[in-house]
């Protein structure tokens, strides 16, 4: 049996789903529970080929409810377990993840977004933002990383395991069908050789007796009274808000003097980056802002940008799901909001350039 899946670092050219499987191996994940749904299938395909070589396991379940709940069982038994899904599977995944929120079970879910609502397309969208950030019958006690390229898929999948086990909130890596299926160059590496320390797992159920004495645990997600629940949720929210600044990540450039700031996330932010660079070369005062964590959202960071800019241009492959998060974050700001919403469809840098110029023209005409 090979010792480490990745020795040192290696330049590779692979699909995003393959990247996720390698990242989970690199993060020392021990077991994957999964159910087929496009476009995430190849995560399982690569995992089932690679995992046995490193003494790791897999269970194909009967549906995503089972994939989620078996994942939680694996975590409770002390293993680094994870799952992956998409679209309608993500809908079902919200039930187990709400249990993870209530019981503070560390868990990692990779989402490769597809078109919605319903079965829609198996290809691509950014329409699972609302569900992934605030799904389930709760308060959104979770962390969502929205990746833009294959290097990030690798880096953030590894990071997701540490975030989940450190803070004990379910953690999602939100990719999409384009990232899942396209091939791209990236560097994979052994995280420990780079100095990254893994947060140790914890055995919640089935712990061996200590000095012959077993202390049984009783875990539950149900409460008898409103007050009892209120106390628990208040404490969880306080903890969440306290650690949120440590978790929040975003990227921005050219925002200092920008009149228009393009706000986008995930794969769309790549088009936005090119568009902003081109427009800057033309001499237009355009900036770039990208939330990496959609939950918790970089609200303070965006507020600062919104305070200086005249307009935020919200660009996404959904009809305003990221926009809702933005509006919530900058509430009270008087910045103008414009949008380029293309639900379920990719967005090019050319389209963003055209949209920015329209807004510029409109502003001059006033």
């Amino acid at each position, binding site marked *: 049996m090979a010792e480490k899946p990745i020795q040192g670092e290696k330049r590779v050219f692979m699909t995003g789903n393959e990247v996720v499987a390698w990242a989970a191996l690199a993060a020392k994940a021990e077991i994957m529970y999964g159910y087929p749904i496009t476009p995430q299938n190849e995560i399982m395909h690569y995992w089932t080929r690679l995992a046995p070589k490193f003494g790791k396991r897999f269970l194909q379940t009967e549906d995503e*409810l089972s994939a989620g709940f078996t994942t939680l069982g694996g975590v409770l038994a002390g293993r680094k*377990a994870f799952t992956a899904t998409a679209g309608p599977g993500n809908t079902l995944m919200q039930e187990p993840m709400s249990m993870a929120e209530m019981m503070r079970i560390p868990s990692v879910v990779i989402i490769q977004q597809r078109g919605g609502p319903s079965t829609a397309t198996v290809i691509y969208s950014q329409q699972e933002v609302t569900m992934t950030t605030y799904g389930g019958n709760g308060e959104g006690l979770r962390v969502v990383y929205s990746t833009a390229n294959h290097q990030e898929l690798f880096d953030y999948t590894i990071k997701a395991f540490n975030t989940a086990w450190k803070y004990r909130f379910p953690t999602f890596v939100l990719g999409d069908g384009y990232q899942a299926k396209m091939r791209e160059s990236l560097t994979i590496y052994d995280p420990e050789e780079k100095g990254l320390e893994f947060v140790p797992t914890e055995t919640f159920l*089935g712990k061996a*007796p200590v000095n012959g004495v077993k202390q049984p645990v009783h875990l539950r997600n149900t409460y008898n009274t409103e007050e009892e629940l209120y106390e628990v949720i208040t404490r969880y929210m306080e903890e969440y808000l306290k650690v949120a600044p440590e978790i929040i990540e975003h990227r921005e450039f050219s925002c200092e003097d920008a009149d228009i700031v393009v706000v986008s996330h995930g794969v769309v932010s790549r088009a936005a980056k090119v568009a902003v660079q081109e427009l800057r070369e033309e001499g237009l005062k355009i900036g770039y802002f990208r939330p990496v964590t959609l939950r918790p959202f970089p609200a303070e960071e965006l507020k600062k940008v919104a305070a200086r800019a005249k307009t935020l241009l919200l660009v996404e492959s959904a009809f305003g799901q990221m926009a809702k998060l933005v509006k919530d974050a900058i509430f009270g700001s008087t910045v103008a909001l414009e949008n380029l919403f293309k639900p379920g469809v990719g967005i090019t840098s050319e389209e963003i350039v055209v949209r920015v110029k329209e807004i510029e023209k409109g502003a001059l005409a006033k």
Partner: protein
Amino acid sequence: MTMIPQMPKSWRLESKPHKFCPGCGHGLVLKALGEAIDELGIQDKVVFGADIGCSLLAWDFFNVDTVQTHHGRTTPVVTGVKRANPDVICIAYMGDGGGYAIGSQHLVNAAARNERITAILVNNCNYAMTGGQMAPTTLPGMKTETTPYGRDVRESGYPTQGPEMVAAITREGSYVARGTVANLKQLKGFLKKALQNQMDGNGFSFVEALSTCPTNWRTNAKDTWAFVEKEMTKFFNVGELKNPAAKEGE
């Protein structure tokens, strides 16, 4: 001096008297289960999963590692535990709604995969925690809150034959039985064998227990007992359906 009634060693005294209604069969099933755990000496190795419905009231019932889950999802949770740590002895404890309706796909597939877990399903012919609605196991003609004129089999079919279904879809190594709270000695024997079957690594083990619900049946003690002994057994045969250990002796 206060007399403490005799209770299984694996019971958690702090949570007694338990929270089930007077006359409820859960306490009896859990007593048989507690004695089975004691006699097998496995208290420190058990992971007990409790479903939603009245079975959730068992979340602090035993001095064993316990996890209370969602409605129908106890089978996958303990499957996940067992797959991650085969050394523990996993029990999924649920009602007829959890096992035969909302979680039926999990029961069917865990059985088909021959998961090395023990599922215990309490059949009381109704959804009791939510106020007595029709369950998959409600008897034909039986009145519930959602069948106020009696269960019409043309509208909603016949009672689910759980152990028969599990027996039909499992192969070598599975243990399947139906016991009743009216015969606790036999029920305890079935539970013990179902646990032993898991410990031997044979395969999926399933015990349905016919149980009582006087609160929702609106029956007195005598009628409650008559219902479980006479009415339920018309549809649900008590006995062992599959026992890998018995094969050689036959």
